[in-house]
């Protein structure tokens, strides 16, 4: 089951869901609008196929994403719950402009409460602004008693690269 606006609000009020900072105006009928954090990690590829990431602050006047290139970003808000699973996707207004938010991995584990890393890929050159409203998070009921996530990525509040060694 997916939580409605009123249930999300209720669970934020009693501390079962953490969204910080929280603005009730950002609630949708069955999700919450999250914002883009202030930094991006830009991938640099070298001749030997190795990839490294350079962190940049998104300027006020915007940062131009090149098409078909992957950038790491993060949510501005700290989001999570020890009771519900989360799903983070882009807003339809952003998808309609051709920006992929999350490349296929939209499921967030129960118990991970942090600023989520987002993968951004633009279909066309695309301007992003710091703290723009970029995506929606929804909350899902677990069917049975749950074990909380204690994995590696859950400890990070900055755009975090893959731990897979190439």
């Amino acid at each position, binding site marked *: *089951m*997916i*939580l*409605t*606006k*009123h*249930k*999300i609000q*209720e669970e934020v009020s009693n501390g079962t869901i953490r969204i910080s900072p929280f603005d009730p105006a950002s609630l*949708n*009928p*069955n*999700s919450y609008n999250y*914002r883009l954090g202030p930094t991006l990690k830009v991938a640099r590829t070298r001749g030997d196929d190795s990839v490294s990431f350079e962190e940049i602050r998104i300027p006020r006047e*915007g940062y*131009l994403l090149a*098409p*078909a290139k992957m950038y790491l970003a993060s949510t501005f808000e700290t989001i999570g719950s020890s009771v519900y699973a989360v*799903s983070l*996707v*882009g*807003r*339809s*207004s*952003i*998808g*309609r*402009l*051709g*920006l*992929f*938010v*999350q490349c296929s991995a939209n499921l967030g584990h129960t118990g991970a409460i942090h600023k989520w890393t987002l993968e951004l*890929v*633009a*279909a*066309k*050159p*695309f*301007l*992003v*602004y710091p*703290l*723009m*409203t970029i*995506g*929606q998070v*929804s909350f899902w*009921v677990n069917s049975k008693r749950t074990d909380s996530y204690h994995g590696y990525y859950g400890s990070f509040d900055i755009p975090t690269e893959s731990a897979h060694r190439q």
Partner: protein
Amino acid sequence: MILSKAEILYGYNEGKIAIDPFDEERLTTNSYDLSLGRRLLKYTEEVIDPRKENAFETFDIPKEGYMMQPGEFLLAHTEEVIGSDFFVPLIHGRSGVARLGLFIHVTADLFDIGAHLRSTLQLYATLPVKLRAGMPIAQVSFWTVEGEIELYNGKYKSKEAPIPSLIYRDYDTDEA
């Protein structure tokens, strides 16, 4: 919980799920197959800027089909108007279409409860792929909710489709 085929049909017959036009043959085990509508929308801007209204053109898919090129991005729509005031619809690509290298949405799969629309599809091709009006392209599944329901009252209301992004309207009131 996700509705089964029988529950979707029951919800449709009870008036709790709207799918128009509806054809029982299109029900699958956990979803309903949606067709591609005729109208396409293409942005004509070099750079997409979410703070302004981005220019676009619309055109109809010709009889012989429209050949979409790798890297091309188009908005399209489902032929069907779908929605529910009781369940949350999620839009998925059909696996047969995904196997052609075609994304049917780039990110936003979630419908708001209470929105009754032709779903705007965000098509992105990774291989050359021919679009034909009426082709089965997507699936909608329906999910039960927990909590008191407040229906969608947002900016995407028109049943005409595809609807371009209206995000620039947020910046009249939004400092972000």
